[in-house]
């Protein structure tokens, strides 16, 4: 068991233990968002949505994406095998060298799946096809915003020694 769980699969970039934690972490946050967010908005209006953002996303950020070092090692604790130690449930693949995978992936797809399950039996394929361009627009917007934000690493400024 120990051998199996701790075996680092190089082509997958993670060990079986990381697969289990990633699936479980994304399950938890998606389930709580689907169950609680709409109900909070029903009960409290827009304030309920803002409360949900803090309580659900903030709390599950700590569970899924927290990184080591509270003022001790803000840059992360180096692992002897390279990369940084990770404590969040959603593993960043290839010891953190992969592009950032956010729990928003799980939330978006989970809401898509639950709406698909809730739509009527004969209409599922139609509503799935209808939603695809809207999902594509959301993803395109994210790509634009994220890529432009990433450009600040290339702006050439060297303020206060920060990279």
């Amino acid at each position, binding site marked *: 068991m120990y051998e199996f769980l701790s075996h680092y699969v190089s082509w997958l970039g993670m060990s079986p233990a990381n697969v289990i934690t990633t699936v479980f972490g994304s399950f938890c946050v998606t389930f709580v968002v689907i169950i609680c967010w709409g109900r909070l908005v029903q009960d409290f209006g827009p304030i309920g949505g*803002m409360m949900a953002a803090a309580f659900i996303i903030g709390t599950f*950020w700590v569970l899924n994406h927290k990184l080591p070092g509270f003022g001790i090692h803000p840059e992360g604790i180096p692992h002897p095998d390279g990369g940084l130690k990770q404590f969040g449930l959603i593993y960043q693949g290839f010891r953190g060298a992969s592009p950032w995978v956010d729990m928003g992936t799980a939330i978006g797809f989970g809401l898509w799946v639950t709406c698909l399950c*809730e739509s009527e039996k004969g209409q599922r394929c139609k509503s799935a096809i209808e939603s695809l361009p809207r999902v594509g627009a959301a993803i395109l917007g994210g790509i634009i915003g994220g890529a432009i934000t990433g450009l600040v690493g290339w702006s050439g400024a060297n303020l206060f020694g920060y990279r």
Partner: protein
Amino acid sequence: MRYLSTVIGGAVCGALCFGIWPEMWKSYGIMGGWLTAAIVISICWYMNHWLGLFWNQSGQIWVDQGWSVASAGVSWGLVRFNSHFAQALPVVGCCLVGGALAGYAAAYVKRNNPAFACPSKPTVPEAGPHV
């Protein structure tokens, strides 16, 4: 036009998340990350879903700003750190599996838990005399 507003809302949400979140974590640790969710996701949710920048109609499949955050995270990592897109795919796959499981489970719970029976609309048809 609704597509354009979806793209703009997604771009703002992704840029806010990945411009602010790492810096807040580096400055304030765990509490910075929690606080960032409170200040960034709340205002993005208000703009995108309460005011309706994202194109969602009732009765159709919900498009969440989570899609934007997800793609922004990957593209931010690609541009900022020169990482490889293929290396994100295993984790994305795991996240999709977990999200799909949770979506199915939540639909099941909503269908069968009496707490989610909406009083305003009838969910169960009237039982006929043969029952």
